[in-house]
């Protein structure tokens, strides 16, 4: 198949200081960060929590983070699910359609590691194997606050977990 994007050089070349680059990305996005969400075989647990972060209590929009309906308008790609064979192509095409710079965020234990589906023959994931992942948000599903922490971590506004 020829839909595999050229793998992004995440660590080895061009970028000496990752933190500096992230600051620059945060400045590039100017506090307004648009996300495109791709469900790559998720059980909808993560989707329920992703819905919750735009409710009035968690209120994603107060942080300048929005959900876009087109990858062309998106700065970040949210991926849920263990990446099934069927969703591999659409996921990679979505990534290709996004303008640079772009961030990839793995949401949930499935996207991070394959989770309970890791040993399934129908699963091509985890996401790390297909795309350069910037932030891992663990949990099954991650709580809305964990999601907020992960999104702010992608924008370099909070510290990572230890």
């Amino acid at each position, binding site marked *: 198949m020829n839909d595999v994007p050229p793998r992004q050089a995440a660590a080895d070349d061009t970028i000496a200081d990752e933190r500096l680059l992230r600051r620059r990305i945060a400045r590039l996005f100017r506090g307004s960060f648009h996300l495109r969400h791709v469900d790559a075989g998720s059980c909808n647990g993560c989707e329920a929590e992703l819905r919750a972060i735009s409710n009035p209590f968690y*209120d994603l929009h107060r942080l300048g983070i929005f959900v876009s309906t087109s990858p062309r308008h998106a700065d970040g790609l949210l991926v849920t699910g263990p990446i099934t064979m069927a969703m591999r192509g659409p996921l990679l095409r979505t990534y290709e359609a996004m303008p640079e710079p772009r961030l990839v965020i793995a949401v949930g234990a499935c996207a991070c590691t394959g*989770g309970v589906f*890791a040993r399934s023959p129908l699963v091509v994931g985890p996401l790390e*194997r297909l795309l350069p992942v910037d*932030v*891992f948000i663990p*949990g*099954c599903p991650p709580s809305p606050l964990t999601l907020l922490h992960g999104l702010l971590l992608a924008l370099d506004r909070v510290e990572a977990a230890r």
Partner: protein
Amino acid sequence: MQLSWLWRGLRTGVLTTRYPKASEAMPERWRGVVRIDPDRCRPGAGLPPCVSACLPAALSLDVAAADGTGRLSLDAAACIACGLCIGACPDGALAMTASFELATRSRTGRETPTGGTAQRSGGEKRR
């Protein structure tokens, strides 16, 4: 009174969370991620009950010592926080953390289980 809804709203105030400016208290039974107490963890010979209870194989035993005792390690990104290992541990060495700030930038540096996941997190696989 017609404006009773207004007074009610003003009395209630703003309920939106102030995170990340202010921390948010999690519920009492909130399950963050499993933490291993290395002093109390005494995995004997054979498969520990916590490892066999772990659904996504996030817990694993690295057997290094000559006497067959090993060290327990956890892949935090794979943990689904089901809590089955905590009940299974005979030494009471496992507990849930109260933290919800669990996102990380990389999985490198994290302990990875032996077998499946360690190989899977390797290079890119093309089909």
